[in-house]
């Protein structure tokens, strides 16, 4: 994006690490302030997850043939609530159940137990209504790559009830904000770098004006500049439009910069939840919180490093 570097210091999440640590030293952190401002605007729950469980196992016939009946529990009694306007982070190693959770929230996977409500609508029994309220960005941009960005967005815009004209206008505007000009937007996406494709994925998600945005490792594999552009966009849309965001990530710095609250997921269970400051304080054990690294926080609560894969179901990517 032209001039992006000059614009960086104006954004909350683009502070340097030392600035982040400084902010954590005071009780009313930037995170807490922003969250409180946004959350106080509405007391509505954007996301209400109660005792959600999901098992995966071999098909029934194979289970009978092998006389095995032990399914793998990908998500285990997970509960949390996200008020409207909050950015809620879910952090876990590969195989911890993050992607399974996101797919349940996306209405693509039925939970075996528990309930999930998005703005009061049940994801199982009111899936169509929930789908109108949500959108999603995954680690893999996932497009019809022979088509152009505009053609892809045209389809998704129409599928969410926008007219062709509205979609074209909004798409080009969003892509420009993300640093993609019209000429690029009309070329086949095959010709785009991964970072550019991911920006189109962010535009796709926001095009439909979701009230809840599910970001599943949206910056994984991006170069630093693309990552920063995507992070800035995420922060801006929350600030300007009050969109509620659920973010899963491997990147501790990103989680701390963007999220108001964070939950750590290990073996399908939430093992800790709180603001970044609260989580640091919980393990500080006499140390100053600025001396506590979030990676240490993660290891303390989960018993493993973030880059360590958890053993689990091959169906589950995260």
């Amino acid at each position, binding site marked *: 994006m032209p001039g992006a570097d000059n614009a960086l210091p104006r954004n909350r999440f683009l502070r340097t690490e030392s600035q982040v640590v400084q902010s954590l030293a005071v009780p009313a952190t930037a995170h807490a302030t922003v969250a409180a401002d946004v959350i106080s605007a509405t007391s509505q729950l954007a996301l209400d997850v109660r005792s959600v469980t999901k098992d*995966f196992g071999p*098909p029934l016939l194979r289970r009978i043939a092998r006389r095995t009946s032990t399914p793998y529990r990908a998500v285990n009694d997970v509960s949390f609530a996200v008020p409207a306007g909050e950015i809620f982070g879910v952090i876990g190693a590969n195989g911890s159940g993050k992607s*399974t959770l996101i*797919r349940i929230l*996306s*209405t*693509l*996977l*039925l939970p075996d137990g528990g309930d999930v409500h998005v703005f009061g609508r049940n994801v199982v029994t009111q899936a*169509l*209504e929930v*789908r*109108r309220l*949500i959108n*999603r960005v*995954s680690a*893999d941009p*996932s*497009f*019809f*790559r*022979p*088509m152009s960005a505009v*053609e892809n967005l*045209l*389809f*998704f815009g*129409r*599928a*969410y*009830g926008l*007219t062709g004209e509205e979609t074209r206008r909004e798409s080009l505007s969003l892509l420009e904000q993300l640093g993609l000009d019209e000429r690029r937007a009309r070329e*086949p996406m095959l010709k785009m770098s991964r970072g550019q494709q991911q920006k189109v994925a962010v535009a*796709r998600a926001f095009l439909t004006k979701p009230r809840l945005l599910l970001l599943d490792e949206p910056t994984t594999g991006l170069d630093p500049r693309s990552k920063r552009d995507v992070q800035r966009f995420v922060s801006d849309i929350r600030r300007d439009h009050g969109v509620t965001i659920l973010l899963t990530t491997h990147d501790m710095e990103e989680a701390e910069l963007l999220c108001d609250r964070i939950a750590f997921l290990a073996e399908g269970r939430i093992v800790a939840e709180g603001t970044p400051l609260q989580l640091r304080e919980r393990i500080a054990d006499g140390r100053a919180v600025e001396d506590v690294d979030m990676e240490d926080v993660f290891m303390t609560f989960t018993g493993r490093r973030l880059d360590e894969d958890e053993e689990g179901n091959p*169906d*589950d*990517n995260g």
Partner: protein
Amino acid sequence: MTTADLTYPGSPRRVALGWAFVERQTNLWKRYWGWELVWLLYGVVNTLAITFIAREAGQSGVISQEQVRRLTLFLLIGTLIWAYLSAVLDDMSLVIMWERWEGTIEHTLMAPVPRAVHLIGMSVFGILHATARTALILACSLPFFNVDLGHADWLAALLVVVVGSLSLIGLGILTGILPMLYPERGEQMSFMVQALVLLVSGVYYGVNVLPGWLQAASNASPATYLLKGIRSAVIDGHGVAHQGQVLLVLAIFGVVLVPVSLVAFSAAERWARRTGRLKRQG
């Protein structure tokens, strides 16, 4: 958009949502024009290769010249209808498979589009696409043969195709379920369905040459009646009034198969959502 907007099949909202799929597939095929050209060439070569059998039969004295003309039309109609039918079934079996290849399956299926609207949109594209491809194959193949189309009843033939296409949509949606249930083998399974339809429907021969049990099976294939009706209209010049029975059977197939296939697709989707199959990787 409210739920009420989507309640009625013909509501403008539903039409607009369904159009999204027609437009997307059209854009996609434009980008894959090279493949379309390959399939067109294959269709023309297949039509010529099979229809020349009639000329060979005439030249070797097996049948009379009058019979050659009749057999040529018989085979030409068979190859063209097969090209049409397989294009519709292919497009419908790609409903899930193509999304998996491109990785868009999760994004498409989480869009707030009722599944029936999604499938009808894909079917409309399938019919338009198959019609265009078949018309081009016909245009490229006709100059090779001396066929008399003078007494064909085109209105009756068109009516049979239109009513028969309903049942093809139903059949197509049913074959589209297979790749959803079996991510690894679904594509091959849908080819098997096509192969069975080819065998029992009398595409290149009359169903009366089949063994008894296969003749019984041919009654269960809508393609049997589709071919029978079109041959009767084009070769024998029988009008709409003469097509009553064929049209009635095809209409019954359509009225039964379309809703049954939609219900079956929804049930399969629910199972796939339970078992975690609605995703890019198989």
